[in-house]
Structures are given as C-alpha cells and as structure tokens.
C-alpha cells in the first residue's frame, strides 16, 4: 500500500483528550493512534461527537480551553508537539502544519483583503518583504484556481463565492509550504459541483506537491474521492483502519458496515436503508467493553466486557471488532441479495 520510501510525516500515538464538563469528564478522544505518510491523504470519518474534530484540533494545538491532552504523543518529524510550549508551536503552525476549516466565511478575516491574508504567513514565517509576499500570494491564488488573481488580490472575502473562499483558505494553508494540512470537513458547506472541484484540487496538491492531508468528514464517498487510507472513529476511539477501498467496500467492523448500509448510494439503489439503531454513546460514561456493543446487531457476551483495541488483520488493515467475521458474513449475504 505504501512504498518503502514513504516515511511517516506525522505519528499520533495513543492520544487522549478530555474535556472537563459540569456532569463529569468527557473522554472526547480515547487512545487514538494514527500515521500519515508523505504525500498521503488519510480520511478520518465518524458521526458528530465521535472525536474526529477534537483529534485534529489536538494535533494543531488549538483545543478549546476546557479540553486537555491528558496523554499521548504527536510526533511531527520526530518532535513531540504535545510537549512543545506555545511559542514553539507558533513556529510550526504554518510552515509545517496548517488547517482548512469547514466554514471559510468564519475562518477568514472579513475586513482584510484576501491577498494580505494569504501573504501574512510568508511575511511572518519567511520574513518576506511586502512586495515579495504579495507576489507569492498571487502565485498561490493562481495555483488554487482563482481566476484573475492580480485583481482578486484586493478583494474582500464577502466578494467571493463559497467555493472561491475555500480556495482562498487552501491558498493560506499552502502559503508556507507545510508538510501536512489538516482539513476539517472543508467541502461540507459546498455544492456538489464545487465540492468536486475542491476535492480534485486537494488531490492534485497531494500528488504534485507531496503535501500530506488528514481529511475529516462524515461523508464516506467523499473519502473515496481523495484518500488512500481511512480511519473510522466511534465514541472517541478508532474502530477500523485500512486502505480506503478495502474499508469502504469490504468493512471488517459492524459500525463501518452500518455507515455504508445506512447512507443511500447513488450507484446502488437498495429496497430500504438499514439505519444503525440507538444513538451514539455518552463519552462521560462510555459503555463497557466495545463501545459500539449496545447498537451492534452481532453483539456477543464478550463484547460487553472485553476491551477492544485495534487488532492487525492481514493486508495492512486493523479492526477493533472481536467478531469481525460476522461483518464479513453479513456482507456476503448482502451481495447475494442486494
């Protein structure tokens, strides 16, 4: 799946993020480990509240004030970001690691011309002169497909359409040549034709510039358009990881299977959708054993008690399910009677 030359740019090891709340401690991220290789796009999927956005924010060191990393390591080029003080993190945010948010309108400064917002990074981190930074900004705007960049340089965010604003966000993220870009649902607010354009742009950046991506989304097909590997999150934990096609088309965890079966697919019309019963677990007092067991159709006695860390399977994939064969069987039955 990954060549021998690939080395991980980013390694997250056993990350725990907890949020102090009135009714107890929310274990938002509970033992997540993740690796991203150079030029690779990794999808992180899950429902709202699964901890996927918290994982991203922890990596960038921009957690909300009540959230804390309680243990774990985040290694970027061998440096543990968890241990770094804030001023040292500022040196890393931009030149090494950057982020694209879901709502470009609320992430961009509404009263600053977009060109200056793009030029700010190179000015601060690279010490570029004003003129050189402006040149760089125009080059970046052209690179992300903003037409007429010389004129658009002086425009304000409100003068841009949603897709163009997201291109501005991407230009800002690229401005200091980072090694990895964290994407938090960057296409969710966009129309499908514009989403298609943005996904192609991101795929091209990965391919041509060797930048790595972590792409957070709740939309499984979007992951297939862009990513090579995917990690599925549920209740603050990873439940399945592997190559995109294997995980999405041939899952080994009942939760992944549930996500695939419950979403209508434009290419395969099924008689009725199969919803996942119940609702996501409380992260203050998560269920014992496998966190998915109260909603799982294949639950057995040991699922209720035994902890379920990710286990390696043949083919460089991993699942947290103790009885993943049941998912395989269910899939085989699905294929016979679609």
């Amino acid at each position: 799946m990954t060549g021998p030359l690939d080395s991980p740019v980013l390694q997250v090891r056993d990350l725990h993020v907890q949020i102090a709340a009135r009714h107890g401690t929310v274990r938002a991220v509970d033992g997540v480990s993740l690796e991203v290789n150079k030029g690779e796009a990794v999808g992180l999927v899950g429902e709202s509240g699964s901890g996927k956005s918290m994982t991203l924010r922890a990596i960038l060191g921009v957690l909300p004030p009540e959230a804390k990393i309680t243990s774990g390591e985040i290694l970027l080029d061998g440096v543990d970001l968890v241990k770094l003080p804030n001023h040292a993190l500022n040196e890393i945010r931009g030149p090494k690691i950057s982020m694209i948010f879901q709502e470009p309108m609320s992430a961009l400064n509404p009263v600053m011309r977009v060109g200056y917002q793009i030029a700010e990074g190179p000015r601060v981190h690279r010490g570029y002169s004003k003129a050189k930074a402006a040149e760089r900004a125009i080059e970046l705007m052209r690179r992300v497909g903003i037409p007429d960049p010389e004129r658009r340089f002086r425009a304000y965010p409100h003068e841009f359409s949603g897709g163009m604003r997201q291109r501005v966000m991407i230009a800002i993220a690229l401005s200091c040549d980072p090694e990895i870009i964290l994407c938090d649902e960057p296409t969710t607010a966009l129309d499908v034709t514009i989403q298609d354009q943005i996904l192609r742009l991101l795929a091209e950046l990965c391919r041509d510039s060797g930048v790595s991506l972590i792409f957070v989304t709740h939309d499984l097909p979007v992951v297939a358009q862009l990513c090579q590997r995917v990690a599925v999150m549920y209740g603050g934990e990873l439940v399945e990881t592997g190559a995109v096609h294997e995980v999405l088309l041939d899952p080994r965890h009942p939760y992944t299977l549930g996500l695939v079966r419950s979403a209508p697919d434009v290419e395969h019309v099924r008689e009725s959708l199969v919803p996942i019963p119940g609702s996501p677990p409380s992260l203050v007092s998560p269920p014992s054993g496998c966190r998915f067991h109260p909603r799982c159709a294949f639950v057995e006695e040991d699922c209720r008690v035994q902890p379920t860390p990710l286990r390696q399977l043949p083919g460089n994939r991993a699942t947290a399910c103790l009885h993943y064969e049941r998912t395989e069987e269910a899939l085989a039955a699905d294929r016979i009677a679609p």
Partner: protein
Amino acid sequence: MTNGGPTSHAATSQDGTSPLLSVDGMAVSFAVGSRLAARIKNEQRFLHAVDGVDLDIAKGEALALVGESGSGKSTFALALAGLRQPDRGEIKFSGRTLPRNRSSADQRRIQMVFQDPYSSLNPRLTVGSMLRELIRVHHIVPPGQADEYCKEMLTLVGLGPDAMKAFPRQFSGGQRQRVAIARALVLRPDVLVADEPVSALDVSVQATVLNLLGDLRRELGLTLLLISHNLAVVRHLCDRVAVMYLGRIVEVAPTEQLFSDPRHPYTKGLLAAIPKLAASPPGPDDQGPAVVGDPPSPLRLPVGCRFRTRCPIAQPICEEQDPMLTTGAGDTGHEAACHFAFGGYSHPLRPPPTTQGNSGAGAGAGVTDSAPLTDAAGATSFPQQGD
C-alpha cells in the same frame, strides 16, 4: 418562460387523470439592495429566484426537485405551500386555481417539513400542545378526540404517545424531524413538501427519516415533493426528478431515466460530480472537474441559456436563444431545456470553449467578456507553476 400551446408536462397519474397539483409559469422575486437608493433612483433591483417554472405533480407521486444552492428550489417550495406570494403564475389544485390568499382549508392541503428541526419547532410548546393547536384551528377532529388522534399520529411516525408531554429539546435531531413530520401530517395534507428533510441530520439517523418518508408515502398514499441537493437520497425515494438551475427547470424525467440517460449537460455534470463509494482519487490524467466555475450571480443572469457559461458544449445558438423544455421522440416523460438534449438541433458543433483556458499560464485571460458575467470560466486547470 410562458410558452404557448399545450406542452406535455408529463405528470399524468397512473389512471391518466389530470395532475393533483399543477404549477404554471411561476415566478418569485426578491427586491435587493437599499430601498432608499431604489426610491431616489426610482428603480428597484430584483433577484429572480424562481423564473417561470411549470411543474405537474400527480396524485401519489414522489417528485424530487434537485439543484444547487441558489437554484430557487426552496423558494419554489415556499410559494407552493403558500408561505410566499409568487409574482406570477398559478397553482392549480385538482384543477382549481388556488387564490392568492388561501383559505385555511387550502392551506391545510399542502404542508411542509423544513430542513432544520432545531429551529422549525417552537421550543416553548410541548409536542402535544403544538399538535392540539393545529387540530383546533383546522377542526380536524372533534376536541374530545384530539389527544387520541395526536397519539395515533406520533405512533405513526415512530414516536411513542409519551412524546405528547415532551418539549422539542428533549428529542434528538432525528426524533425532532419525526415530530416535524407528525406536525405536518396531523392536518391530513394531500401534498407533503419536504425541504432538505435530512441534511441537518447525522448519517446514521438520515436513514431512519428517509425510510419513514417512504413508508408514510406507501401507507397514506401521500403525494411527496422532496427538495434535496443529495441525488443519492432522491434516487432512493422518488419516482420522478426535476433538476433546477438558476430559477428554471432544466430537466425532468422519471428517476431511473434521469440517472441512466441524462440529457441536459448540467444534469450530466451534476451526476458526475457526486462522490462515489467505489471511486479512486484522480490520477495525473485527471479530466478535471465535472462542471467548471461557479454559478453566475442570479442578479446578472447570462443571456440565452443560463448554463452556457459553464457548459462544455456551449455554441453560439445558446447565447442567442433561450432553450425551452422540450421532449425527445416519443412521449417518455423526459424533458430537457437544452438545444442539443435530444440531438434535434443541426448546428455544427464547435470544440468546447473550455479548452481555450488551458493553453497558457495567463489564467483569467481566457474569460471572454462578451457577456455580463462575473465568475465564469473558473478553474478548468491549474497553470503549471513548476515548484
């Protein structure tokens, strides 16, 4: 787009009778800009959100209206439900034109389910009082039977009778949407208009609401107009699909026909742009996005065909003539508003204009200024910057 002569709106119900709901030449516009400036200059600018829509809905049919944001699909739904006055056009219900000010009996016939169940339910009313009020105002059942009837409705949408005493905040998103559906159904409507009913919900919950809508339709013989941007949802639930672009319907067809044989270039692009589970990231030989550029501003619509600024097969004729909805050979119920939809137009095809922008690094220079547009010719390809 008021066209003379009888057009085949293609929505005759199974037994061949006239459609339940028939919309003819509907237009809805919004005044934009400062009212004061408009009064001084003595001119008001208008945004034509819906600009001449003809659409028939047969009894018991599930019709989908799809399109991107700004296409006017939600405005159309509001006008249909009587929540917004159209500028022009008429809405016929069972052959009778609905008056501009609808009686409460007419209001009752077309009910809506809104996108966001967090803002469409009154947070200060229990579900029971919400439903009872509707029953009282519309005299659906005698007051003595109201509670019984409400409980029946809540059971029908998959909530227990206990939901009567609960406030909206006590429900999850999916349950709230069930309450919203019960609120619409309690009036025994003939047509249910659902405007993006699942897009605010989590993936695993969407399925339950979609299944519910499908079941209700079968059980109650409900006529459904589903507004959505999600074509997968539409394919799953609807019999017929109408595609909207900038205030106009550009294609109408039975669902399977639309997906297997789209005729309008916009529909083709829209279908190609949907992320697919079995897809792979594009390689170096990537053909580029399915539809290029941004939609033009609805305040400055292109002359002629509205899609031509993003269309891969645009020809001079597209600027000269605004294409109308036409059918192909044989009455298949498939209509498209494109000069080339059914191969009928014998104009010599010019190579698509998108190739012009690819040639050099002078991005933006490829934008022809012949038409009053803003964001045309967006990102066909990215000039190689050699880094």
